[in-house]
């Protein structure tokens, strides 16, 4: 016990005296939270929308006013020619063109089949998707407000209602996911470096000539990183709550439980990597490629899994972060409980048990 305590203490000194580790642990979560919260704003504001109002009724004018009243849309600076709507997009005078064909007012009253035409500049994928969603959402909201209850407009195919992120805010989408990414980074990346460093500098050899058990080294080394990983998680949650005003809907205790499974899994990956490689450089590269990259790309953190090719979709199932991402978004945004997250719990538990077993074995055979 005393040995483990001193190993942990020593490890703590290493971290506190190493600018690189300190940066990763304390600066990174704050930087990333702001980066994903503000800078990487997938929200689209002030999209230039040209509206061709061919209906020319009070209703159609009302709709147009409504659209421009929101911060999402703004009219084009110069007069555009609606004879060739495509030219408007091609010349970048507007990102999207909404065409209100005659009959809109009739449809509002009578409920005939009616469609609004929307032309979107597809050269920017994300922007296009966002504009499409916004327009549909904005039109629907207008219709719902306008129409007497229970009356539906047949022309409006999607009865749109966005759940959980009704205003499609990026921070709500990114920030919870950041907890998943950061826990992984601290746990896998930093632990893989710490063991590789001791091997590279020869201090591991000296340590192993002392009567210290491998398990004592492991536990002692992992303790500071486990604590710091949770600390980082808390930092992000605090920012989420107080800077981005993202409510925490679910149970903190449940999140802590899942966080533990996830961190143990990530630590095991870190140990495995550092047991197999000899230098810090390689450890860092390998940790990055095997944990960070898939966790950002293949988990739904940024890109939706359902939009991926089937082969990639299958691969996402071996990325633990995918399951934790569902958990943290579920708990934070939807207030999900164990009843709906049980499956994720089982997956994470399986990951943890298998990886811990392999990690302990590789550490024993390759390092000791």
């Amino acid at each position: 016990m005393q040995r483990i305590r001193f190993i942990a203490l020593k490890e703590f000194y290493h971290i506190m005296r190493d600018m690189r580790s300190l940066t990763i642990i304390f600066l990174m979560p704050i930087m990333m939270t702001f980066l994903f919260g503000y800078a990487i704003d997938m929200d689209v504001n002030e999209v230039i929308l040209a509206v061709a109002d061919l209906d020319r009724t009070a209703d159609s004018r009302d709709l147009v006013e409504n659209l421009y009243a929101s911060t999402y849309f703004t009219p084009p600076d110069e007069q555009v020619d609606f004879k060739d709507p495509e030219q408007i997009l091609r010349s970048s005078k507007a990102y999207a063109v909404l065409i209100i064909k005659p009959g809109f007012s009739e449809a509002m009253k009578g409920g005939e089949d009616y469609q609004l035409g929307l032309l979107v500049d597809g050269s920017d994928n994300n922007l296009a998707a966002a504009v499409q969603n916004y327009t549909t959402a904005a039109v629907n909201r207008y219709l719902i407000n306008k129409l007497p209850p229970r009356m539906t407009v047949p022309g409006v195919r999607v009865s749109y209602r966005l759940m959980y992120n009704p205003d499609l805010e990026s921070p709500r989408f990114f920030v919870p996911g950041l907890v998943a990414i950061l826990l992984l980074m601290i746990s896998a990346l930093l632990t893989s470096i710490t063991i590789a460093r001791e091997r590279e500098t020869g201090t591991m050899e000296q340590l192993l000539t002392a009567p210290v058990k491998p398990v004592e080294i492991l536990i002692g080394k992992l303790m500071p990183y486990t604590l710091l990983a949770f600390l980082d998680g808390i930092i992000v949650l605090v920012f989420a709550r107080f800077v981005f005003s993202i409510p925490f809907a679910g149970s903190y205790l449940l999140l802590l439980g899942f966080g533990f499974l996830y961190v143990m899994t990530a630590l095991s990956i870190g140990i495995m990597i550092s047991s197999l490689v000899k230098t810090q450089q390689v450890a860092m590269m390998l940790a990055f490629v095997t944990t960070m990259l898939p966790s950002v790309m293949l988990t739904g953190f940024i890109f939706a899994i359902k939009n991926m090719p089937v082969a990639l979709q299958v691969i996402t199932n071996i990325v633990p972060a995918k399951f934790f991402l569902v958990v943290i978004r579920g708990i934070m945004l939807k207030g999900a409980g164990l009843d709906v997250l049980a499956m994720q719990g089982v997956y994470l538990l399986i990951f943890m048990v298998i990886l811990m077993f392999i990690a302990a074995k590789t550490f024993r055979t390759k390092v000791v």
Partner: protein
Amino acid sequence: MTSPAVHIENLSRHFGQFKAVDNISLTIERGEIFGFLGANGAGKTTAIRMLCGLLKPTSGTGRVAALDIYKQSEQIKKIIGYMSQKFSLYTDLTGLENMQFYGAAYGLSHRDVNDQIGRLSKRLSLEMLLDRRCSTLPIGWRQRLALAVSLLHRPQLLFLDEPTSGVDPVYRRHFWKILYELAEEGVTIFVTTHYMDEAEYCGRISVMHQGRIIELGKPLVIIRKHGRTNLEETFVELISNEDRIRAAN
């Protein structure tokens, strides 16, 4: 306690086809200063690593203070001190922190650690460098600190792998003076070195070449046996003879 400090028979360690240590046998008595000589890559470090429990032998038997190197490496670790070629304490910790850490690693009590730190820093004149991070220490001081750490738990045996390489002559002399004192106190010292003048300070030496021990005995006896005047010439002759024999085969 009359068992020898080290007793190995037909010890080998292969890495694939390469025989790093090839069938060596050796007995070292307690309180001896034993010099383990050989060119780079002769297998000295591999041999030491096996004795310290860092590496499992491929074949042969070995005992350190009557403890089996296969089965009792944990007990062996408690009674040996080890200092590797490369400075292998934590450079981002201070001397004091390194000593406290290793004191705990060896399972010494808090009070005992502090006693030992006081005693050893006086003996090795380390007082003024205890509060400095090791990264700022010159190499001679680092080696002194490493020796202090390896002595914390009062080992019966000390394995020193080129402890004085890169260290200035004045300090080397001082270092050897301490080794002599330790030997007089009954500590067995197993030391590898490149410096032939240092080898002459040893009670007995062995010369290792390509994994095998090709000469073993008191330095003066070996020199005379080969009709030479000093150990350096003898060493060079031994190695080139051996190479000639190998080439002939």
